[in-house]
């Protein structure tokens, strides 16, 4: 039997609590009392403990997102991490991230995170301008952010991401560049720069906002890559920039469709058929069957994949988290066609693009056979390019990527 190592698995933990919901935010989160947070921690640990033991997977990354996960007591986070380590086998250099917001961190908390194995911190700054922060409904000032950032460095965090937001109401290109430079000068390892999307149902959607025009947004996006490059950040995804070697592996996993398991309220998962059966308790472990196989680690073309999502109802989650059958929703078996579509529209988000060879390996077909027409059309128009066995967006194409990506859905 070949010893190829286990198939990688990513974990996502959702902590749906924040101090105060920001005015643009449409994520599943909201303010809460200490007791709810305690109850949630217990429920999350129950969900972890209810997972089958000895899953034939190696955890390569954990991402704790929210909400504001740093709002949980450090001891709670410690217990959650312990529960995970108890249940899963972690790879040696697993990337373990927690999202944090200024004003919710302390040296003690950061120490405990470190001790629990958390090795990456994602800090929400959004803007270096206090007026803009106020307009967004953020709970902190730039100075408070700076304090948190320095605490994190002092605690030994050597992989920090800063979240920034462009196209904030009334923002000019100059102001955005200022924010960008201010963040870059702090020398984080990673910067995520999103542009504001006004989502239905948020306070922003009900407000009359002076949003920057399309041309300004275009310029902001163009400047972002240029300026960050000067500070040593390379763009590797539509909204993500990193120093060499610090690309967020967890996120890349999403774009490359590595298997992931979402834990906590409203979390989404993607698993292959074997893991799905295993999670459903149909087999205690997939290993016995896998032994007979020739060691192929990746989905064969016929293999189905499953997506599902945990309930978004907090009460239900608190009551039933130990019973996956109750909390799992929207289970969808992905056909090969859907897998191909996702492979394309997720993979093309990465500046490196998608590998022709990987497509062949996964689906047993040439990419040309399925997508030749679309790829050629946009190549001719100068929005896509191919080199070294990869298809990717050109600089011109990335600006209108969303428009183009929908063409990768098959008829």
């Amino acid at each position, binding site marked *: 039997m070949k010893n190829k190592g286990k198939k990688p698995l990513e974990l*996502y933990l959702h902590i749906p609590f924040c101090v105060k919901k920001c005015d643009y935010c449409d*994520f599943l989160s909201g303010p809460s009392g200490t007791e709810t947070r305690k109850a949630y921690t217990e429920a999350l640990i129950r969900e972890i403990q209810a997972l089958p033991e000895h899953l034939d997977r190696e955890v390569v990354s954990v*991402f704790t*997102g929210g909400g504001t996960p740093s709002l949980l007591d450090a001891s709670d986070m410690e217990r959650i991490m312990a529960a995970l380590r108890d249940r899963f086998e972690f790879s040696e250099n697993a990337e373990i991230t927690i999202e944090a917001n200024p004003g919710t961190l302390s040296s003690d908390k950061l120490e405990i995170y470190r001790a629990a194995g958390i090795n990456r911190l994602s800090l929400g700054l959004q803007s270096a301008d206090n007026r803009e922060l106020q307009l967004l409904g953020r709970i902190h000032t730039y100075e408070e952010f700076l304090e948190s950032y320095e605490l994190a460095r002092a605690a030994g965090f050597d992989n920090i991401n800063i979240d920034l937001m462009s196209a904030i109401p009334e923002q000019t290109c100059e102001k955005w560049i200022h924010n960008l430079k201010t963040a870059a000068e702090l020398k984080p390892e990673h910067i995520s720069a*999103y*542009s504001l*999307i006004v989502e239905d149902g948020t306070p922003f959607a009900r407000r009359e906002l002076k949003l920057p025009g*399309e*041309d300004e*947004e*275009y310029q902001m*996006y163009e400047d972002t890559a240029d300026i960050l490059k000067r500070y040593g950040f390379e763009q590797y995804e*539509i*909204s993500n920039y990193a120093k060499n070697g610090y690309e967020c592996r*967890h*996120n890349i996993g*999403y774009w490359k469709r590595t298997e*992931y398991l*979402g834990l906590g309220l409203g*979390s*989404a*998962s*993607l698993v292959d058929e074997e893991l799905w059966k295993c999670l459903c308790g149909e087999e205690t472990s997939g290993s016995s069957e896998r032994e007979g196989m020739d060691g192929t680690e990746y989905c064969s073309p016929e293999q189905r994949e499953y*997506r599902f*999502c945990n309930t978004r109802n907090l009460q239900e989650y608190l009551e039933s988290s130990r019973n996956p059958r109750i909390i799992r929703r*929207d289970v*969808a078996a992905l056909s090969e066609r859907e897998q191909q*579509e*996702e492979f394309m*529209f*997720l993979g093309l*988000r990465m500046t490196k693009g998608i590998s022709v060879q990987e497509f062949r390996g996964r689906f047993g077909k040439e990419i040309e056979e399925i997508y030749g027409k679309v790829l050629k059309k946009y190549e001719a*128009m100068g*929005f896509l390019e191919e080199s070294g066995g990869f298809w990717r967006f050109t600089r011109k194409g*990335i*600006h*209108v*990527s*969303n*428009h*183009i*990506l*929908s*063409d990768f*859905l098959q008829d």
Partner: protein
Amino acid sequence: MTDQSKIRNFCIIAHIDHGKSTLADRIIEKTGLLTQREMQAQILDNMDLERERGITIKSQAVRIVYKAKDGEEYIFNLIDTPGHVDFNYEVSRSLAACDGAILVVDAAQGIEAQTLANVYLALEHNLDVLPVINKIDLPSAEPDRVISEIEDVIGLEAEDAPRISAKTGLNIEDVLEQIVEKIPAPEGNPDAPLKALIFDSIYDSYKGVIVFCRLMDGCIRKGTEVKMMATGFSTEVVEVGYFGAGRFIPCDELSAGMVGYFTASIKNVSDTRVGDTVTEVTRPCAEALPGYKKVQPMVYCGLYPADGAKYGDLRDALEKLQLNDASLFYEPETSVALGFGFRCGFLGLLHLEIIQERLEREYNLDLVTTAPGVIYKVYKTNGEVIELTNPSNLPDPSEIEYMEEPMVNAEIMVTTEFIGAIMDLCQERRGQYIGMDYMEETRALLKYKLPLNEIIYDFFDALKSRSRGYASLDYDLCGYERSELVKLDILVNKEEVDALSFIVHAETAYERGRKMCEKLKEEIPRQLFEIPIQAAIGSKIIARETVKAMRKDVLAKCYGGDISRKKKLLEKQKEGKKRMRQVGNVEIPQKAFMSVLKLDEK
């Protein structure tokens, strides 16, 4: 054999919304043909579309039995008539099948334009008109005023007109009694040679064409060898019968004075044209009933399936619709922009809209319609004359000597306060004033000669809006006139879009071109590159707009694992693209092809 003196053949005429269909329902209900539970509002209008639009498209008929106060049983044949100018010919044939007409007048609104037009039409057919005052339950009802209006304006005895509410059923018996008393019984000769008027026909997949007819003389039964006098088609009758509500009830024989149907394994409705006279092969009547004319399509447009793969479905659907509608014409055509489709001919714009809606609704087809046009006569320098129904087929200008367009004599009934507004409208539409007759102090009949192509777009709507609904239009084709016509082409991204070309008068070409470009700019979504939209006559560009390129469309934040949400967004976008037509590199929404039909909407 039914005694003719116990038969009453009549129709109901009214201005729109005065309660024609509701009264018909009430009459059917009161005579006990149906229980209340079986009643579905507006029984006679049984196409969904008719019920929704509140209009009657096809003629319908129903036979009911009424036991009158004199103790006798009477047979009522109620024939419903279409109410729109497009179907005027069908109306006149329906009226010709009747002996009398019930005139419904709204007790609050009184006489309206269509009331008059319909009355005159009924009188033209020598029908006895029985006025009925409806909606007396309305708080604003003024039956006395309306009665004297009927007497003054129409000159119709109305003193003892039934005052009813068709809605609540109040005094419906009065109407039924007066039908017996005041509408004359038919007076045909059952022993004379067969002479029957076809007033409608429908196609049934089992029985073939079902011919609706009114027997003037003679009788018809199973086995009768019949001949259609205009089309010359002859066949042997398989079944005769009369009309129950929503179904056909076979009987042994139909005789003079009766209204009913016959079937004869007829495969094609065009063999049994509305207005034609049916007689016996062996014993033909001396002469046909007057008034038959072959209905000619007046308006043409291209109909294309939104999804090219549905071409076959569209063809099948048109075939089926034509079975029921001999006035629908179609033939295959090809468009560079729209692919394979059909050039279709209609009686008018409403007819077009109705066919379009029926195709979409009853046959589940998504359609793209091109701008409607009329038949132009193109006189070429080589002496050839072309009848042009598709602008794309217009020869090169150098080969054209001159062109002619069809004209109509339009009669517009209008209240005096709107005369100015309507005259302006006619002037704008290149109308030639012919004259004006005052019908009475407040009402006039305006006569104009108008190009047909000016009234097929939205003339009817404009007329209604400029007269607050009071004006009514009737028109007759009156030949062709020479005219300065040009073909206006639309270029999208420098490519001519044939489906958007149309013929227009030289004087209005610039204005139309400009409006088309403006409208298209609104309708064509921004794409990955800049798109010029131009209007051109020949090689001369007369208007231009530009759809700017899309610069930024990035879905920045995509919450990690929740891919299904992102996919839904992409699917929505893809769905939107599907409803577009690819012309060169440009995606043009189907809506854009249609938006140019309504350029004058403010």
